[in-house]
């Protein structure tokens, strides 16, 4: 347990100490909220969709969690380049414990980031329908965070440097975000887009988060919960396996 804890606390310390990164990562969600929220708001309302900020806020919270989680997962590459990975891998500690500590740390950081973005949403005018559902929202935030931290770690376990990083962002993370129902409702979409959204785990995460905040959901809340939980576990297992196979 102590090894998991020290790994977890290390992730938190690193996050807390890199203030520029913390503030920098808030710029993107704010831009999305302001530009899209206020920009598309009137059209959304005219089309009968209701308040767009209320619709968008859960999507932007999920987005910030997605990016923070993948980044913290991918930090394995930094650890490899700066040599610290060797220090952890040569220690008499099972790899899965290192992976658990790392994932929990990354997921905690990403959840905190999600909560900060939630507070910013409140400033901009977002109001949750039902405050008693806030714990459920945080559960979903943590599940999304766990899923994508594991994904980042799994990918990073196979990479030796940051060169492939833009590739991952553009061909994996961006599509996951844009085709997840974060920005638009999933009703009445063209078939291909709908299919992609249906196999995208983030769709279920966003949907669950939106249900917790606004009471409205596209899928069933239990389906959301089940899908995100199971995918998070599976990807974590894959990540643990990949991480355990690292040779330096």
């Amino acid at each position: 347990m102590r090894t998991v804890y020290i790994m977890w606390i290390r992730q938190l310390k690193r996050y807390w100490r890199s203030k520029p990164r913390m503030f920098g990562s808030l710029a993107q969600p704010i831009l999305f909220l302001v530009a899209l929220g206020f920009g598309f708001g009137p059209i959304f309302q005219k089309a009968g969709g209701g308040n767009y900020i209320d619709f968008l806020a859960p999507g932007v919270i999920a987005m910030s969690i997605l990016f923070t989680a993948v980044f913290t997962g991918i930090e394995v590459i930094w650890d490899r380049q700066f040599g610290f990975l060797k220090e952890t891998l040569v220690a008499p500690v099972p790899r899965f414990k290192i992976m658990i500590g790392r994932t929990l740390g990354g997921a905690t950081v990403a959840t905190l980031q999600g909560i900060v973005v939630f507070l910013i949403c409140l400033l901009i005018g977002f109001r949750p329908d039902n405050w008693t559902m806030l714990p459920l929202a945080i559960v979903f935030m943590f599940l999304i965070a766990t899923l994508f931290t594991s994904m980042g770690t799994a990918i990073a376990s196979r990479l030796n440097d940051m060169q492939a990083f833009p590739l991952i962002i553009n061909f994996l993370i961006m599509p996951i975000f844009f085709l997840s129902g974060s920005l638009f409702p999933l009703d009445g979409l063209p078939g291909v887009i709908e299919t992609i959204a249906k196999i995208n785990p983030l769709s279920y995460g966003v949907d669950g988060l939106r249900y917790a905040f606004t009471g409205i959901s596209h899928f069933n809340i239990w389906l959301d919960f089940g899908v995100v939980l199971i995918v998070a576990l599976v990807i974590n297992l894959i990540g643990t396996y990949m991480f355990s196979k690292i040779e330096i």
Partner: protein
Amino acid sequence: MEENIIEVNKLVKKFGKITAVDKVSFNVKKGEIFAFLGPNGAGKTTTIKMLTTLLHQSSGTLKVNGFDTLKEQSEVRKSFGIVFQDPSLDDELTAYENMEFHAVFYHVPQKEIKGRVEKLLKFVELYDRKDFLVKTFSGGMKRRLEIARALLHHPKILFLDEPTLGLDPQTRNHLWDYVKELNRKEGMTVFLTTHYMEEADKISDRIAIIDHGKIIKVGSGKELKKFTKTKNLEDAFLKLTGHIIREESSSSDTSRQHARLWGRR
């Protein structure tokens, strides 16, 4: 006390088509200072990585402190401390936090952590800097911290992979003094690699010369000089390994990475 603490038997490591380590066999005795010398790309670091369970050999057997490096990884890992060729500290943590992290990872009892860390930080003269982030440290300070860290769990063997690379003579002398003292007082076995021949000659009991993945000669500095009829170890080394400059660095590193990436093992 002629017990072997490291036993290497017909060790082979291939990266794709390249054979980095080719049927290497040698033993290191308990309490001995053993130097591994060779030109760039000779297979020194690869051998150390296999001894320390970071790489798996293609064939052959390795025993460290009586444990097999493939089958009893955890026991092997508890037996040694290592200072890697390149830095392995977390720059975003303080000196104390780096030490604490290591102590937890090596199961040092909670009650003993503070005492041991403080004692070792004093030993390498970094105690007054213990709450500074490591990224503010100079190269020499980082090295000293890494040595202190490697000793934290009272290892039986200390691996030093070119520990004095890029350090000034003052720090280098200091460092070897520490190492010698530890070896004498605690009977700790030391396995080191270096490119500084005088250092190797001065500090080690026995020296193995390795080139192209093969061991060419093992013996004390005196024996090597006598064998090659040379006056100093540098000449002996050059006589044994030739004068041709090796092409290692990036090219073979890349092919190693490719081999790893595509799983051609």
